[in-house]
């Protein structure tokens, strides 16, 4: 099994979730995170003092899947998370890592069936 971790722009969350649902992904865990990357933060103003906010709001998705789903999931996220369908700086990253075991707490099931 694999764990897909995707960092995306917050307003893309619904679109990505729907696209993943359509290809049969049944579970996602989402976290609000702050991202630092090539996309530069914006300038804020407080009582006459300007300052740069380096960390931009992003959403992190963690999706556990079986190994054979990796390509379609990565593909789906890539497409849905791309700004205006073409890609803008800061659209985010997808990380793939290995997952050794999964347990469903409710039933105690393990492995792919627990996803």
């Amino acid at each position: 099994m694999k764990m897909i971790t995707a960092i995306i722009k917050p307003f893309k969350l619904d679109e990505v979730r729907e696209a993943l649902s359509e290809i049969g992904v049944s579970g996602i865990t989402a976290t609000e995170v702050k991202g630092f990357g090539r996309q530069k933060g914006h300038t804020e103003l407080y009582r006459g003092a300007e300052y740069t906010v380096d960390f931009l709001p992003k959403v992190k998705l963690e999706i556990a899947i079986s190994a054979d789903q990796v390509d379609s999931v990565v593909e789906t996220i890539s497409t849905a998370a791309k700004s205006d369908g073409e890609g803008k700086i800061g659209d985010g990253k997808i990380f793939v890592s290995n997952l050794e075991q999964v347990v469903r707490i409710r039933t105690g099931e393990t492995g792919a069936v627990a996803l």
Partner: protein
Amino acid sequence: MENTILEMQFAIDTFYFLVMGALVMWMAAGFSMLEAGLVRSKNTTEILTKNIGLFAIACTTYMVYGYDLMYGGGMLLDGISGQGDKYSNAADFFFQVVFVATAMSIVSGAVAERMKLFAFFAFAVIFTGIIYPMEGAWTWGSEAVFGLFKLADYGFADFAGSGIVHMAGAAAALAGVLVLGARKGKYNKDGSSNAIPGSNMPLATLGTFILWMGWFGFNGGSVLAMASKESANAVAMVFLNTNAAAAGGVIAALLLVKILWGKADLTMALNGALAGLVAITAGPDTPSALVATLIGAVGGILVVFSISTLDRVFKIDDPVGAISVHGVVGLWGLLAVPLTNADVLFTGQLLGALTIFVWVFGASLALWLVIKAVMGVRVSEQEEAEGVDIAECGLHAYPEFTVK
């Protein structure tokens, strides 16, 4: 000694105006909190800036020109100091100026979350300096409409401004929303509507309570006198009825939403309170307490259906429900007056409502279109997505909290 007595009457009436005026001024805080609670947090700093800015603008333009246009007396309050027959003219101005700010506050909520701040301020300058004073002159100012006919001759009366203030504000708001369009993400391709919950319910509730309190000044002060038994009794009845109508609005709205959707939707209860207040405003002096409660209750019911209908049927995106609360219910308030006041005619009320609406809506629409052509009214898509706070004000409302 007689003179002393006259002076004391003068003093009492002036004092009364000032206290009522301070209560109405407090409504500016109410609108700010209500609107800040009903928008998303990414648009909160901007709406706060808008509200304090529009209040300042209204106070200034009305001083420079609006008061003169509405009631005469000269620009820049020429020589207002130390004058007045029955009460201080300065107190009268203070009381009137907070009304124009109220009318303007109504607009700010409806166009929230997507309008350019300075386009709004530009509108505020003309609305508070000319559009509102014009219709104010035809009604409270007793001038003929464009020199043609006098509304009072047709049996029109609007005690504290269900129409003159609230419906007028809503008409300007409606024009603004039509020019501006809905928020991104509000309507789906299939035409269905998405709920976009406000970020802070305690603020919205606080705002409603502030408005409820301020409304005692709004309606109570509109008796325009206190220092006799008759006027004191009148003011007291107005307080009582204003409170009763708000209570009726809350109860009716709460029961209705409980029946319709099974839950006690707080935002509808708040809108119910405001609807009750708007509904009674055109005639808080004549009904009994029970009738006032019922007038408010009808307002509370109307507002629930109106908000749903404007949103889902007409696709008018009004984030705080201002057009329903102040416009639809303002009209109901006007039409309810003849029920308890024999001096007021149903046709007169319709004519008055029409006059106000046509003028304010028409003039506002033209003005919004001019502003759109000159400087644009809407922020960019990107700015809207990130929230107008950063784009317009450069600061988040809650910089430390993790938000969507």
